[in-house]
């Protein structure tokens, strides 16, 4: 009776919920930065650097511009963290089932993952500074570019398995091992679109430092900025877990310790791919990004869907 209440609460708050996600996010940032640095021929940060950055930033003075709408300005970082943490609860990690799940949770997770982006937009536009406003406009423009290919890419495993829940997709691929290999194009599209979602080069247009200073984050400081950074770190983990769950659904349902190890390796693999992509490319311009997403990524995602439908018909 008591465990029926306490265990879910602990699950949500500690493991594998919020606290785990925070730690994983900070470690993910360390991994990304270290790998990025090594690829640059630099030494890179020590293990606890992301945590130190977070603590230092959080202890700094926070400034809210006089012209800004203070309430929304302060609420947005919290909203970003909350939405990301919420999305994480529906993503299965090492078992077939997520902590919570229902038919259609794939769509909900995608929408929850869109909320941080919207919070960047609102935070930027309500801080009223020039650079932040331009950054905010770029955030939404970018959203329209990468969101469609990302949705389309995630559609094909769902169509294949005939389920709209991430756990359902995972179970389907558990029953049909190696079928996930048919979704590799979709994985590539999803990976590239995630670079936009996570605001990384070549799609870090919204906070392009050399162009618009800090983009939407220009006016943010102190713990608000720290929370935004944490939200992005957490989002990286959620997106990688989602991609791993949907596109790399193997090694599930094993012994928990082994399963956890495989999960960590999968997430690390996805993060490493994202890092590699941002190492070898230059930042695109917003118009070039739009053209790229609509003319190349979206058709590729459609190709994947058609391939999936044909295969499904042929194999069953």
């Amino acid at each position, binding site marked *: 009776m008591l465990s029926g209440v306490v265990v879910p609460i602990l699950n949500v708050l500690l493991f594998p919920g919020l606290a785990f996600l925070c730690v994983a996010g900070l470690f993910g940032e360390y991994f990304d930065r270290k790998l990025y640095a090594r690829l*640059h021929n630099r030494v890179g940060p020590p293990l606890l650097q992301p945590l130190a950055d977070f603590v230092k930033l959080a202890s700094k003075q926070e400034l809210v511009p006089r012209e800004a709408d203070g309430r929304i300005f302060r609420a947005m970082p919290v909203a970003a963290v909350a939405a990301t943490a919420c999305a994480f609860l529906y993503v299965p990690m090492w078992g077939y089932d997520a902590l919570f799940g229902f038919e259609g949770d794939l769509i909900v997770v995608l929408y929850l993952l869109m909320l941080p982006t919207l919070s960047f937009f609102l935070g930027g536009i309500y801080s009223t500074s020039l650079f932040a406003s331009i950054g905010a406009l770029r955030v939404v423009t970018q959203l329209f570019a990468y969101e469609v290919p990302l949705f389309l890419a995630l559609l094909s495993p769902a169509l294949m398995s005939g389920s709209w829940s991430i756990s359902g997709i995972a179970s389907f691929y558990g029953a049909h091992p190696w079928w996930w290999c048919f979704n590799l194009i979709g994985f590539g599209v999803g990976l590239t679109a995630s670079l936009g979602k996570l605001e990384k080069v070549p799609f870090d*247009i919204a906070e392009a*430092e*050399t*162009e618009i200073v800090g983009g939407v984050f220009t006016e943010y400081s102190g713990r608000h900025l720290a929370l935004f950074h944490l939200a992005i770190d957490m989002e990286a983990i959620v997106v990688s877990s989602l991609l791993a769950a949907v596109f790399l659904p193997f090694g599930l349902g094993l012994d928990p310790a082994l399963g956890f190890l495989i999960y960590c390796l999968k997430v690390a693999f996805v993060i490493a791919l994202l890092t590699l992509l941002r190492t*070898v*490319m*230059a930042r695109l*311009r*917003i118009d070039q990004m739009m053209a790229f997403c609509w003319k190349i990524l979206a058709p590729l995602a459609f190709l994947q869907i058609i391939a999936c439908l044909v295969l499904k018909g042929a194999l069953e």
Partner: protein
Amino acid sequence: MAEMKIPIGPQHPALKEPESFLISLSGERIKDVGMRLGYNHRGMEKAAEQRTYVQDVYLLERICGICSHSHSTAFVQAVEEIAGIEVPPRAKYIRTIVGELERVHSHLLWLGVAGHEIGFDTLLMYAWRDREIVMDILSLLTGNRVNYAVNAIGGVHRDIDDDQKAQILKAIDKLEERTKYYIEVAREEKTLITRLSGVGYLSKNEVLSLGAVGPAARASGIARDTRKDDPYAAYAQLDFKVVTDEHCDVYGRTLVRVGELMETYSMIRQALARMPAGEIAARAPRRVPAGEALSRYEAPRGEDVHYVKANGTDKPERVRVRAPTLANLQAVSKMLEGDNLADVPIVIAAIDPCFSCTDRMIRLVRSEQGDSGAEARSIGWEEMRVRGIEWYRGRGVDFADLNARLGARLC
């Protein structure tokens, strides 16, 4: 969408030195660019008049931290011309070698900065790591990584021995191999080409009418290079071609610079092989006879011009410096027309700007009104002195009082 005015500078992450660009935008497209210079005026020309020629060599070397050898060479060449000093051939070769090594370090530095401006930090890290090779060679030859202090009026301070020669050749081989890799990157890396092509377009005619110099001009197909047009130092004895390109955009400027690196390596090899034995400096008089001279030097950024007027004393009457960036700045607003906001940093960076070398004058404006309300007015020394005294008195510092007290102590 309504027109928006975005200030890029005086303080902005894309600019390494303070300079102001006010960009009028419609959406992301640039409609107009307002430019203002003068945030980094250091009064060097005036300071040069109060120092001796020998001191001026060191002062003018510090106009620029990157093309310091260019400025000191341009100055000593002008003084040597006025004084009629015959510079020994070996000294000319050493000047050429240091000048070309400086070009290598400047171009590699630019390549890294350009990478950073378009969010390609990997290129920055790689280019700057390789730049260390040439920095080490420069410090081996001259004792300094920047501001080499190798020039003297009448020659150079340091000779190059056989051991150093071997080390330079070894470093050049390594750099050549790395540069070939960068040329490959520039020709093949898709995002780089997409970001740079067609950006910052400057046609051949615009180069001529705006008087652009250096790689900015050569990338528009104009073979304008002082080393060829008006050879100084040992350039007349070296075989090299002026690298040009027909792209007329930032991509072309990138190709010109990496292409120039390859030419530079061959020039350094030739200079080391042909360097004659002999003296490295001629004796220079302390007083320079009255006269004037104009000296041109092809700095990594373009033509650098020094004008020196001597009045027969040991101090120059007037020194005038035209840094290459000044010649290229007018072209920047032309290049930016119709481009995207995202292109501003790379277009500005593509002329390899050196704003603090360029700034020569301050114009006072009333800050509330911005540029439009500015009225230029000149004041004399006496009025300036009175103003200074009043300004300090207003802040509670009275020099009259201070002088009296100091005077009392001295007595």
